[in-house]
């Protein structure tokens, strides 16, 4: 009886241990944002070449460390460092566009960023960076201007997309699984859930645009036929993905249904983020949206905890972190305050992760 209790407890702790990579990953993202913010804070004081050299140095250091980790057979560390390198690259590109006034068009910036992150993801075979690339790629499509150049710009990314999809399908076909700290993350499910999130996000964006909430030119809803057709295609794919997931026979059915809930709620979080960033809200609006956001993230966290769903937990933590970051920016703090806030959150997550790891080790000691 006692042994059974210890075993259950150990299993529960083991599940919690699965959250450790997620915590470390989010901590690395926060660290990356802190790096970007600290470079931004130096821009006003330092000369252009010095601050640009600093951002190149940070990128080179993180990429070099990722290469070192990969060489020494540390895939998880390498993956996290690559995510950090992607953020450093974003900071470098952002700095370049402002200090050297290069990317005057926002969509051009995101396309360049998407291409760079894609290269990093492919070079390191990194699933985390791949998901980042998907996020940036979708953002770059959203940021395209509502004119005939839309298709031109899309076709620019199309060869990369096809190449990448062939790679993904090949991996799914071979049922390739990624192994992080002895935790098996199913590639297929991760990709499906990620795609589902963004497709839902696209639909929410599409509906918002058609309701006149957001106009791509900031004033009018778009009257571009292509965007309607693409939305219909995306909707069909979403339905297909949802149905395919429902019909999937898994030993743990509630996890699958939970995944759908995560998909939709996660998408709503992202849509809130978009609305906050596009439309400047008053204090009441910001607080209301922030409250909804926190409530949503809490529900996500609760479901993920109950169903022991690592990916759900990842989305919940990301939702908490994003509302935290939005709050930091929304409060109008100085750059140094933002950097301090990000670093504190990063250290907090690292601390929680280390505590869980330590407890896991204690619990797994045979009595």
């Amino acid at each position, binding site marked *: 009886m006692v042994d059974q209790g210890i075993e259950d407890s150990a299993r529960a702790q083991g599940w919690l241990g699965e959250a450790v990579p997620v915590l470390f990953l989010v901590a690395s993202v926060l660290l990356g944002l802190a790096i970007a913010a600290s470079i931004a804070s130096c*821009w*006003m004081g330092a000369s*252009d070449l010095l601050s640009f050299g600093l951002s*190149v140095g940070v*990128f*080179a250091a993180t*990429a*070099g460390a*990722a*290469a*070192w980790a*990969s*060489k020494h*057979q540390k895939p998880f560390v*390498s993956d996290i460092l*690559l995510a950090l*390198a992607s953020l450093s*690259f974003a900071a*470098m*590109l952002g700095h*370049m566009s*402002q*200090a*050297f*006034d*290069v990317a*005057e*068009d*926002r969509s*051009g910036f995101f396309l360049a960023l998407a291409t*760079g992150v894609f*290269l*990093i993801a*492919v*070079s*390191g*075979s990194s699933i985390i960076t791949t998901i980042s690339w998907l996020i940036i790629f979708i953002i770059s499509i959203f940021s395209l*201007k509502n*004119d*005939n*150049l839309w298709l031109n710009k899309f076709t620019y990314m199309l060869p990369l997309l096809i190449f990448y999809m062939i790679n993904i399908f090949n991996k799914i076909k071979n049922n390739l699984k990624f192994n992080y700290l002895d935790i098996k993350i199913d590639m297929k499910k991760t990709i499906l859930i990620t795609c589902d999130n963004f497709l839902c996000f696209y639909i929410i964006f599409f509906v918002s645009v058609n309701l006149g909430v957001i106009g791509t030119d900031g004033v*009018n809803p778009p*009257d571009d036929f292509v965007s309607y057709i693409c939305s219909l295609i995306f909707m069909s794919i979403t339905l297909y993905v949802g149905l395919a997931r429902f019909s999937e026979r898994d030993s743990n059915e509630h996890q699958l249904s939970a995944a759908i809930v995560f998909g939709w709620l996660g998408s709503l979080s992202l849509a809130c983020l978009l609305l906050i960033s596009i439309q400047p809200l008053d204090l009441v609006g910001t607080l209301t949206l922030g409250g909804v956001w926190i409530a949503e993230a809490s529900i996500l966290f609760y479901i993920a905890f109950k169903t022991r769903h690592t990916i759900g937990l990842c989305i919940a933590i990301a939702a908490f972190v994003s509302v935290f970051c939005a709050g930091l920016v929304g409060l*109008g703090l100085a750059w140094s305050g933002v950097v301090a806030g990000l670093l504190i959150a990063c250290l907090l997550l690292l601390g929680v992760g280390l505590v869980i790891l330590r407890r896991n080790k204690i619990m797994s000691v045979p009595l």
Partner: protein
Amino acid sequence: MSRARPILFASAFLVAAVATRIGWEGYQRLAGHEVTMSVVGIDPFELEHSHNSPLVFEDLFPPDTICPTPVGNKDRVLIFGGHWLSILPVRGAGALGDADEGHRWQGVDAWASGMDAKSTGRLAVMGTASCRPWANGIAIRTQIGIDQFHATEAEAIVIRAALRRVYGPPKTQAVLSIGLDGRARLLGLIVNGQRIDLRGWPRR
């Protein structure tokens, strides 16, 4: 399997690509043709907070002018379908009666390719133009890939002071460099007659 070598190659390639782009932009900025165009929408509040401000290339013309091609939907018409504009200096007072503004450039024709636009012998720039009726005439809006600009703290202070200097609507123009590749690059602003060079590298 170690992925160290591909990671290092990709990183080196990205750094080289970024450095090349900076060099190329600097060259185009220096070699380009300098023009001024009318702009509206500089937001002092945004400049103060985020150091970014929207920039809309719009020129107002007096009542006796009409939009070049009265086709299209709603109240806006695209001048022509192409993505290249040939631009010419426009002389004379704008609709706001700013006679001293006199010398500014405006898109006059749209073309499908840069070759076509340049064949007219005029200056060619990548972009589109649309025309809409305005209370006191017409407004021609040009989209040339610049919809906002970033200013440093010092530049933002100078721009805000220049905006406040004159009572009423500010007279603002953008100083652009039209590169050999046909892209417009922002060099600075002329706010109520005062020229303010924005940070860019290399400086002219």
